[in-house]
């Protein structure tokens, strides 16, 4: 393995971990409500930008990070409560437009609050890279991978071991049946948005020291997250994580070996390829349309 290849692999896995978190956010909301939340990328942006502005105000990083994640979670709950729940039974096209509108609205608010400039957070633990077989690995990359790993593990515990997590899974399987056995499905929807916002914001905060962030950063991150979810098979948690890492690595490799200007197009090529040739993704199951 050449050191250049390893270098691309490291940066691909790092950014891929963020895509995986975003993809998981899509998956959780999709499972809870069959809504594709086009505003998922904005949660990432809100997490990163609020951390930046809190640090800018002199708040220590260890306090700013949980505050930033918390504010993104509040925004997530507000989106569910005020944009999604009033239109619960609307058509798919309507819901798509609502979530796109929400994403544009949040971006607009961020532009008013924070301007359009680019910002960076200080690294959590220094910038001295580790050298591994000739490739540099930033300490912040370890933070990203570690945070993503911790979130995925605790998510697995949440859905596998807690009553509320199981209630969410039950709602994903069959909303009506879950309601019949006493699950409060509106609470599940709120929780799904809170969780998705939490994961997005964690990703945004740990990523901000490596990639600069701006109020417009959400769009492309959201799309990559969606690509991850579709590639993994919409609705599959494992799929979203694998999909995220694959998208990240593919993007880093195409930037390294093909053309850096077409790096952004990689995700779209993957999404079209997946939708055209394997619409159920890597881990998804076929569905049938009802008349």
């Amino acid at each position, binding site marked *: 393995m050449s050191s250049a290849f390893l270098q691309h692999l490291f940066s691909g896995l790092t950014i891929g971990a963020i895509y995986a978190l975003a993809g998981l956010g899509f998956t959780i909301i999709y499972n809870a409500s069959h809504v594709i939340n086009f505003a998922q990328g904005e949660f990432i942006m809100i997490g990163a930008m609020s951390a930046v502005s809190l640090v800018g105000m002199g708040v220590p990083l260890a306090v700013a990070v949980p505050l930033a994640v918390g504010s993104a979670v509040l925004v997530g709950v507000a989106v569910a409560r005020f944009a999604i729940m009033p239109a619960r039974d609307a058509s798919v096209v309507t819901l798509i437009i609502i979530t796109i509108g929400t994403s544009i*609205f949040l971006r607009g608010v961020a532009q008013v609050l924070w301007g359009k400039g680019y910002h960076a957070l200080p690294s959590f633990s220094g910038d001295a890279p580790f050298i591994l077989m000739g490739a540099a690995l930033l300490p912040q990359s370890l933070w990203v991978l570690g945070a993503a790993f911790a979130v995925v593990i605790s998510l697995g515990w949440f859905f596998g071991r807690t009553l509320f997590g199981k209630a969410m899974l039950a709602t994903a399987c069959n909303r009506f049946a879950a309601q019949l056995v006493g699950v409060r499905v509106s609470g599940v929807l709120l929780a799904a948005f809170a969780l998705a916002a939490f994961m997005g914001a964690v990703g945004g905060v740990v990523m901000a020291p490596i990639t600069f962030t701006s109020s417009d950063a959400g769009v492309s991150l959201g799309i990559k997250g969606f690509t991850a979810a579709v590639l993994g098979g919409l609705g599959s948690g494992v799929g979203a994580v694998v999909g995220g890492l694959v998208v990240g690595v593919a993007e880093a490799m195409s930037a390294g070996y093909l053309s850096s200007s077409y790096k952004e197009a990689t995700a779209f090529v993957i999404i*079209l390829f997946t939708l055209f040739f394997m619409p159920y993704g890597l881990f998804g199951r076929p569905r049938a349309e009802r008349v």
Partner: protein
Amino acid sequence: MTNGSFSKAQTSKAQIGGWIRRHADVLMLAVVVALLPLALPNAYAYDIAINVGFNAAVCVGLNVLIGYAGQISLCHAAFFGLGAYASGVLTGRFDWPPLLALIVGAGAVGMVAWILARPVLRLKGHFLAMATMGVGMIIAIVLNTESWLTGGSDGLIVGEFSVLGFALQNERQWWWVTAILLVVVVAASRNLIDSPLGRALRALHGSEIGAAAAGIDTARVKTMVFVLSATLAAVVGSLYAHYAGMITPSRAGFMKSVELVTMVVFGGMASTFGAVFGATILTALPQLLTAFEDYETMILGGIMVGTMIFMPRGLLVTALASLRSWRRR
């Protein structure tokens, strides 16, 4: 004999009356656009009106796809951009006559849409939205990156539009072109919707499997509408490029596609005049509210969410429906 010819004259009179009644709204639109110059004080007002006309024409086509066939597209700005760039490149770099460039560009975009239609339109709902978004984004990235041909993010200068030595020079002339285009497009759209194809589209919107079971070739019908609306967007894009004198990749971007969809749903899905109305309001309003420029993105998003929650059928359709029920009372 006299009796017979009298009744014949009466029938033809009744036919004309019926024709006028059936097309009253299109005729009214024609009158409005013909009289509008009286109300336009200066070149700036003309400019807004022309941009309204361009957007409205694209939206009427998009409305047939979204409102009637129920197929969302988040890539129509890319088709618009492709048409514009086809005109810019063919006239600027290869000295083609503008009309030929427009026709060839529209034809090429129609081909692209036709090739994309089968795999893309097989998808439904969220997946369709994502796929069209991917297509649009890839087109925008290509336009942005291949700067040897397109001029990159700085854009491309496009010359004036001329046919057989007669060039469109001022806003007034451009307004007439736009106005005629809009009326033709609206009339064609109304005609299409009342045709067997239009009925097939509405059946498809209700239930795709149901429509297929009733003998409608759903794939063919969807492809036709997709290609038609894409070609229309390309034609308007070509005209826009000549009118504005330049074209940049941002005109082909995702946000522009979203704006077009917003115009359609804001006015009212499945209503030709709703699309015209939505395009008018959402094109003119930002021009008139330049003081709120910083809040433009926020307001656009707020309008999208608010319309969909409180008036999911759109502003014009909801207003007309409540007017009708009020009258009945």
